[in-house]
């Protein structure tokens, strides 16, 4: 293996890392901060992807001159669509089940089945593809043998921006402060005058919105189908659990490790066996570190 191939491998790993980060950020908020398992998280990604798809159709027929920016509009729209859906979901279903985390898994699983079928019946049973905007086509030719696809570079940038925005939001704004307060001590936060119910809804919706962004950006890499979400869900959970559910940085670090492992495993064996190997490895690691690799040591009430 020469230097060029090493560079390509590292880039592939980096790319997978950012994809996993985007997928896992939303879940890290919903699962990590709220302790809610949303099995329909993958379908929310698909919802974001479909939103982007429809945006592209809209731009293609009504605003062809502005087609170059549809993708940015699509990402923002995807965020808002899934955000609103997430808010409704929290108010309509999740809030009744906070005390029963296992039941939440089952109820949201049911929701994911319904959403999949809705996609299949009312959008398209087959996979749909979006037209990549011209400025993201092609690749950056670094050296003669190393070329980095622009779409993947864009996703890397997007992931960095999103992660930074989430971090800034949680640690530098009033809303972020409220979210952290409710997560750490609900009763005390309530006593201090925070409307905990609204914070719950907002936090959940935010996680869903992030799923929408992730799904939206994936339209560049792969086509979107009714079962797209299901394909992602286990990997996403694994990233969050592996990193330790209560730390965003842990999630990012674990996405990095799993991304690199995936890239290197795939170099030596088939893609599906690489996935199986990583899942197994994570189960083994969880055995030694049940709270994840980067769990913060805090005493729980």
């Amino acid at each position, binding site marked *: 293996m020469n230097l060029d191939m090493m560079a390509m491998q590292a880039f592939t790993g980096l790319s997978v890392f950012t994809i996993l980060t985007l997928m896992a950020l939303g879940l890290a908020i919903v699962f990590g901060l709220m*302790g809610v*398992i949303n099995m329909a998280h993958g379908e929310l990604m698909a919802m974001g992807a479909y939103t982007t798809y429809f945006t592209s159709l809209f731009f293609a027929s009504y605003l062809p001159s502005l087609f170059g920016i549809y993708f940015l509009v699509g990402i923002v729209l995807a965020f808002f669509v899934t955000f609103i859906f997430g808010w409704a979901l929290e108010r309509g*279903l999740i809030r*009744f*089940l906070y005390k*029963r*985390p*296992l*039941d939440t*898994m*089952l*109820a949201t*699983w*049911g*929701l*994911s*089945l*319904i959403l*999949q*079928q809705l996609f*299949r*019946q009312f959008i398209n049973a087959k996979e749909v593809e979006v037209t990549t905007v011209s400025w993201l086509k092609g690749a950056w030719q670094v050296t003669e043998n190393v070329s980095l696809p622009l779409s993947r570079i864009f996703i890397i940038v997007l992931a960095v921006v999103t992660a930074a925005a989430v971090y800034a939001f949680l640690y530098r704004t009033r809303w972020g402060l409220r979210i952290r307060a409710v997560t750490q001590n609900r009763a005390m936060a309530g006593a201090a005058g925070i409307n905990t119910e609204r914070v719950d809804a907002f936090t959940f919706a935010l996680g869903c919105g992030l799923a929408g962004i992730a799904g939206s950006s994936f339209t560049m890499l792969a086509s979107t189908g009714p079962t797209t979400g*299901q394909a992602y869900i*286990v990997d996403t*959970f*694994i990233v969050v*659990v592996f990193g330790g559910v209560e730390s965003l940085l842990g999630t990012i670090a674990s996405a990095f490790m799993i991304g690199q492992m995936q890239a290197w495993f795939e170099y030596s064996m*088939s893609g*599906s*066996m690489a*996935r*199986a190997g990583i*899942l*197994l490895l*994570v*189960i083994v690691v*969880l*055995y*030694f570190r*049940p709270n994840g690799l980067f769990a913060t040591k805090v005493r729980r009430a």
Partner: protein
Amino acid sequence: MATPAPQTTASAPRGSNLWGVGSFLLLAALLLVVFPLAMDVFRLGLAAKYLSLAFCAVGIVLVWGYGGILSLGQGVFFGLGSYFMAMFLKLESAGNADSSSGTALSAFFGTAGLPDFMAWNSVEVLPWWWEPFHHVSFTILAILIGPPLVAFVLGYANFRKRVGGVYFSIVTLALAAIMAIVIIGQQGYTGGVNGITDFKTFLGMDLDTDRAKVVMYFITAGLLLLCVLFGAFILRSRLGRVLVAIRDREDRVRFSGYDPALFKAFIFAVAALFSALGGALFTMQVGLASPSLVGIVPSVEMVIYAAVGGRLSLIGAVYGALLVGWAKTFFSENFVEFWPYFIGVLFMVVVMFLPTGLAGLVDRLRGRFLRREGH
């Protein structure tokens, strides 16, 4: 020595002993008398298929309802049982000259005695781990010992480290994903996405005749009833009481000197045994071992059987499996596109409004009836 647990069950309604026996006898009568009389062989075969899945549901009641452990990977154990049995049947049919699965073909490839899909995938020597499955006794032992052992080791390791709740659910979910991926990926050794199929005989007996189907139905129903009895026996023993105590307040049980991990791992192993039995019977009757019964989707679907029937009711789980199974057949025969809506709504409605399932509903009605009588 711990003092014996008090013999009162505060929550159980009056006369629950008699009620339990009565509902078991009703189920037995339904499965052993009513179904065989009322159904033709085709429908009876379908019922047997659902009953094979009911084994998993009964196990899930033990693990989830009474152990508080939600396993989303029962398909793994079902799949192990199913594949072990399929390997045996496949080797029998590959070694059998009368079998339809192409002796001409294997003679052509010079691979007599080798399962057909191996020849197609240019695997020329039977892998060593297939060898013991030539023997029926080994196969049965493997089905009875393998999955529970895997479950016990996995469960004990995780529970000892206090990986519980949703984390354990995710671990089991990942296991189900791994197993499906490996089976599909290693086509030459496992039959891949098509599974292992095309076998006709078990120890020389033809599995395809009507008579064999009826016999297999009775074996399935009988074993299932035995599993229900065994589960009830466990729950009524002191072990069962410790289990419920662990579900409700694990830390207190630990402080009392018990090792919760051991109890939880044990019940997880029992559920795995039930699932594996169901898997083996499924394969014998449906003639197929397939990754589509192993992965995440079927594994989670098994939980809904138990949830519909009632997570606290072993008998309810059987009804749950039958009802959901029939609903599935009904939908796939009439309007297949509505099945996902149905099961999706079922998941949500049962969890939100009927957490104790149909059995809970029956109990509530009965409680109302008894109270009225008392006045």
